[in-house]
């Protein structure tokens, strides 16, 4: 792999990123309304509103606002949220952690389980196990997230009462003198239902992807060669077939991880998970420009970097690919 390729890719990423940066600015400014247009409060006079707009710096010409925005970006400042009054970087830092914990964990777990089960299904093609796994994967894939999440909450949180009804912790435990171990267990306890929901939803697609990829790999000549060499079945399956079959899954995981930054707003909403997906929806619907811009920039950056990493991983996993 040539260093030149990586440098070229990085320049390309920087260029695309700057275009996104500019597009985001104008898209938000050109959309109807402003950060206070949604406020329906007769106590706010037009003079109050004009004062608020001027204090947000939105009374300046758009080109001037754009220059400030670009300058702020290059000095590492994403500004202050209009509605929270906190630096956007701080809001993202607080929320991103929760999103990563939940969505990255569920994506990775679902991908690992999907690769394993897809491999088993393909290896046992046509068997009862394969039929069962395929149907199971299809059901998982087509589940409607809000319905499934509410069903889980109702059954396991309300009826059985073994899991909490959303949130990330039990306030009663955290306000008292509770040991750190109990607090950690409490966090894990709250994580199980949303994790289970996302795991099951994601599992279907990874399982089906891996199964189909594995089936096509098993037809390749190098599998015959491996058998001809007398390798044991496990090695053929795991080292020769599965490793190559997993390439499309890795691409999918890479992109899913990137898009998991914006989380699943619906899942976060139902489980009251304080992730960044809900913030993104809030910021867009309330024209909180600094927060919305920063969230989208983050997603753009992660998608671009994830693509680069997937490209590099391909070259590492598949010797036929060189750059």
């Amino acid at each position, binding site marked *: 792999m040539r260093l030149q390729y990586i440098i070229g890719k990085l320049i390309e990423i920087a260029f695309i990123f700057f275009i996104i940066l500019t597009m985001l600015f104008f898209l938000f400014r050109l*959309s*109807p*309304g402003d950060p206070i*247009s*949604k406020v*329906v409060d*007769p*106590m706010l006079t*037009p003079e*109050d*509103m004009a*004062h*608020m707009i001027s*204090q*947000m710096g939105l009374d300046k010409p758009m080109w001037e606002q754009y220059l400030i925005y670009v300058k702020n970006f290059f000095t590492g400042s994403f500004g*202050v949220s209009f509605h*929270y*009054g*906190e630096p956007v970087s701080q809001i993202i830092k*607080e*929320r991103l952690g929760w999103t990563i914990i939940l969505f990255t964990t569920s994506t990775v777990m679902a991908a690992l389980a999907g690769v394993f089960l897809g491999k088993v299904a393909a*290896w*046992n*093609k046509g068997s009862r196990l394969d039929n069962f796994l395929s149907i199971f994967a299809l059901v998982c894939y087509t589940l409607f997230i809000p319905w499934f999440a*509410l069903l889980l*909450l109702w059954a396991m*949180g*309300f009826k059985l*009462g*073994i*899991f*909490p*009804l*959303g*949130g990330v*912790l*039990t*306030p*009663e*435990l*955290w*306000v008292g003198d509770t040991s750190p171990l*109990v607090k950690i267990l409490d966090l894990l*306890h709250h994580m*199980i239902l949303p994790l289970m929901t996302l795991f099951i939803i994601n599992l279907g697609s990874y399982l089906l992807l891996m199964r189909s990829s594995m089936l096509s790999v*098993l037809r*390749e000549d190098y599998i*015959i060669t491996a*058998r*001809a060499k007398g390798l044991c*079945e*496990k090695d053929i399956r795991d080292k020769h077939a599965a490793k190559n079959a997993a390439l499309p899954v890795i691409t999918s995981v890479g992109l899913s991880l990137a898009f998991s930054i914006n989380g699943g707003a619906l899942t*976060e*909403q*139902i489980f*009251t*998970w*304080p992730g960044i997906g*809900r913030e993104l929806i809030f910021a867009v*619907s309330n024209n909180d420009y600094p927060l919305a811009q920063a969230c989208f920039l983050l997603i753009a950056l992660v998608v671009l970097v994830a693509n680069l990493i997937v490209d590099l991983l391909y070259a590492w996993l598949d010797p036929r690919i060189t750059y």
Partner: protein
Amino acid sequence: MRPDTPLMIPRPSQRLKRTAESNLRFILSAVIFLFATVLFLSCQKAEKDLFLKIGLPEEPRSLNLWLGTDANSRKILSLIYQPLYNRHPETLEIIPWLAAAAPEFDKENLTYTVKLKDAKWSDGSKFTSEDVLFTKQLFFDFKIPRYYSKWKIISKIEALDPHTVVFHLKKPSAIFMSRVLTAPIVSKKEWEAVAKDAQTKEKPLRSLQDHSVETPLGTGPFMLTEYKKGAFIHMKKNPHFFGTGQTMGGHVLGPHVDDILFRVYGTSDVAILALKKGDIDYYWWDIQPGYIHDLKEQDNVDLYFNKKSALYYMGFNMRRAPFNDIALRRAIATVVDKDFILTRILQNFGTPMHSIIPSGNHFWHNPDVKKYGHGLSKVQRIKAAVKILTDAGYSWKTPPLNETGEQVKPSDILLPGGKKMDKFVILTPPADYDPKRAFAGTMIQEWLRELGLPAFSRPMAFNSLLDTVKEKHEFDAFVLGYGKLNLDPDYLRSFFYSKNDKPRGWNMSGYTNPEFDRIADIQMSLTDTGERKKLILKMQEILLADLPYLPLYNPHIIEATLNTRFRGWVAKVDGIGNIWSLCAVRPVE
């Protein structure tokens, strides 16, 4: 082996089986660990359950009083920062709160002298007239939205002693008590340094609003102890609360609970489950009628139905044809079936509105305004509307009623000049934002089509809708609402005063009536409530005669509490979620 043999895949080997067994053991261990954790945590929860637990629909945006103006921030901040005067929960009269007595009004010098209670801030420091003076200065220095516009009527404010404040007014003001003296008072100790620093910044107000408030200092019944963002807010009883043990507003004030825990539920479905399960004692939000049947069957849940100080209405663009014609507006008001809206859209949980001021605000509400189409059958309403339109010169090739008085499909209506009326649009919020308003818009469209009017109801994103109606004024008609109107009727002036017909102004219909403006100006300067009431009633009459807005409905606020742990919620207009409830509620013995 032939090239096509790889498809004949052998069964898993013994080694593979061993791997599967090992995986199974791991999964079993994980499941056992999980159940042990669940059991352990269930026991932990049972030990501590002395909190009043309240569910919120969203997290408060900010605990900075000057920025946190959203409904959920207000819920928390209203328990901390207190005004000099408050509204009696039942009579809605303005009664002393941080003030010791009603203000002494000197008509000649235009001064209000207010005696303060011997109150303390939650840190134990004394609340004095200096704090009132400082609050006023803050409003003026930063032109704080919502407050400055009302307080600027004050020409001077002075402290006679630590417990006496004198407000000098520029001119008599009807809203001085209801809008100035009910503003929250902040501590000089908490805000002085912050304000001084903010004054040096390029954007002083923004700097003040962006100040992070960790432990707000208030005089209210509760104080903030801990705020874990994304998780919960913990408030403790303020040991220095001035109202403790006193009877105010007809209630012996506590607080009778030591701790409140607020937590957020992302959807009403989950919050209702939490209430039924006993995870929360009260869900501080308006419950949709669809949940009522289920909740009524729960022995551990009490339901509360209260009137709202709200207004949901249809507005017309009076700046241009065809809605600059009063006959057309009156005809529309006649065919709109408010009883249908009440029974089918509100499911009987609300009241049809006939005046702009809701009936829940009983002191100012005018029950005698003109009620268009009230008590008429559908055919009678159409007949009355047809008469209004025919008298004004409108016509049809096929009228909505035939010669025998039966309803028929009409042809398109023709304007007084004989020209066909252009299609017009009724803008509504989208159904996912407010299904009631969206559905009301659709029904109005159908009723108007029965009259031959080419009406089209169009849901529009709320941001765009307000931008179109309030800023650009590029619309025909719209259905909007105010969910929480102030109890002082001064908003009539905001909504319909001709000078407020400007971009971002609240006169969205573009209503202009010099007589209305004159009365609105007079009532603003009346300090005699009885005299003012007469004018407010008159203003409502004028508005219902001119119809810049057609009032439609006022939904009830429906709330639910758990009845097994706490009791004593105080119901008032706008529900049981209020400071009176939280001062009066006590554990069930």
